[in-house]
């Protein structure tokens, strides 16, 4: 097969922050938030 002309850093998909974190198996609060104790209780 001819070498593909372009190298796609995103692997051809448009991933948002939350998709990236989900695919990594992270279950962060609201997808990308690390809570401290007080905020944890609040949430």
């Amino acid at each position: 097969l001819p070498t593909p002309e372009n190298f796609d850093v995103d692997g051809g998909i448009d991933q948002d922050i939350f998709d990236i974190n989900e695919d990594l198996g992270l279950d962060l609060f609201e997808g990308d938030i690390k809570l401290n104790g007080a905020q944890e209780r609040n949430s």
Partner: protein
Amino acid sequence: IIGEEYRWPHTIPYVLEDSLEMNAKGVILNAFERYRLKTCIDFKPWTGEPNYISVIKDSGCWSSVGKRTGRQELSIGANCDRIATVQHEFLHALGFWHEQSRSDRDDYVAIIWDRIQSGREHNFNIYSDEVSDNLNVPYDYTSVMHYSKTAFQNGTEPTIVTRISDFEDVIGQRMDFSDSDLLKLNQLYNCSSSLSFLDSCNFELENVCGMIQSSGDSADWQRVPQVPRGPDSDHSNMGQCQDSGFFMYFDTSAVNVGATAVLESRILYPKRGFQCLQFYLYNSGSESDQLNIYTREYSTDNVNGILTLVEEIKEIPIGSWQLHHVALKVTNKFRVVFEGHKGSGASLGGLSIDDINLSETWCPHHVWHIRNFTQLIDSPNGTLYSPPFYSSKGYAFQIQLTLSDLTNVGIYFHLISGANDDQLQWPCPWQQATMTLLDQNPDIRQRMSNQRSITTDPFMTTDNGNYFWDRPSQVGAVAFFPNGTQFRRSRGYGTSAFITHQRLKSRDFIKGNDVYLLLTVEDISHLNSTSVESTPTSPTSSIKELCLELTCENDGICAVRDDKAECMCPSGDDWWYVGERCEKRGSTRDTIIIVVSSTVAVFVLMLVVTLVSVYCTRRKYLKRTSSNTANMTVENEHAF
């Protein structure tokens, strides 16, 4: 988030940890420039302050919300090296939740709960207005902090439906701060100015932004809505708005050859010592007419200012608005001077300028101006190549836009064979290419330009064992310029999802059928943590060496004072750690106990002393009186 304890100072100390990818480091520094242009938030390398942000490459992209004590981590992991993602995570650190978690979100979006992945429903919490403050700013579908409609979906249907359907594909933008993002941030941090913005002028107001006509010239610039020979409208509004849309015009048809018209900006006060002037220019006169850009710099020795010619813009194409950039390097208060100059050719029109922006930022190195863009979008072959450019280090490159995909526009960076290749280092090391699709809003502060960066990794190899970034004449394919000249083009490196067609057609990305891609290719090898030339401004490396010998306990932070490593111990409202390594814990309760017990001890001691002394005194007194009696008795015995 409500709570003063979560606020950062306006200048935030940061560390770019070694774990970060090179491209991510460059992207983070570019994101800082966006904060410096549009807000009063600034960033500086950490120099031992107790609270700072440590940007790391951990798994994923994440941050905490609001300021924490001590070292606060923020992760820019693999695939997070996009400027808007960095802006998003730093907005969290500055105290912002996601937009759709506002207490009033149900007025604006509907959450479709049965379309959410099971167990992920908690990501759609609402924050009560006791915890989260919307700062009296209306709900913002365009926020860089808003989920997209597909967030945590369990299928293909959207989990968020906007109550105004026009915004369904707007939510989840990852391009730049929205106007409301900036309104909230600047309000939350009481911003009165920004570090790098200087001026923006669209000539809509009669005061023409305080610009002045020079007296030493032969004609004046006129503020007009259109010119018979062109342009027929201004650039800011492109004639869309009745009774508005003005620009400045120098009529070269009415003056003699060599005549000039000079327009000077108001006096501006620089802080950083480097500036980028950006404006649109239209020529309806003669190709021999030209525009000269000067600076007039004032100092104590030169109260009238020193006029310095910075650039001569010649052979200005006739009949269309053109974007121009001029790099300035001014350190004292100054004016920017626009001098229109009538050339020898016949003219029936003149020169027009509009949408001037001046900021203390670096100009892009190159601009790819794509004309008649709407026709190109619909063209079947759908691939555009830019003209060839040279980077500041001498590498030749070309940009490719792929328009054929129905949803997304792709963008790729190609090294191509160039005149300097024999003198250059191969594989190409650590050159970061930043490609920005310009949102042509007249005001630079309101632009939401779409930017992506890539960095050439000299160690990257391809399936056939070649170095990806090796010399194009070795690893590239034969290609031809439009004029038939043959050259070599390496594989493209970029993304197929640069921007959606829908977003591309929004805002002012396409204006007057023109699109601009701003290009910068710069050497970022100095950001490589293991390289000898680590950035001189961040002394963290010396701190690290000295601190290696000292282990601080209980979350103490090692800092260097007078070239000596010391532990800065954490403390709270009523507790603290002390000791050389923060090994001892103290608290106000302990202190009170100590004070009370020592008071009691002293009191008891005093009491004992008092009692003993009373006892002794009494005993002594009794002894004396008894001895006196005895003496007296003895004495008197013989006296009778």
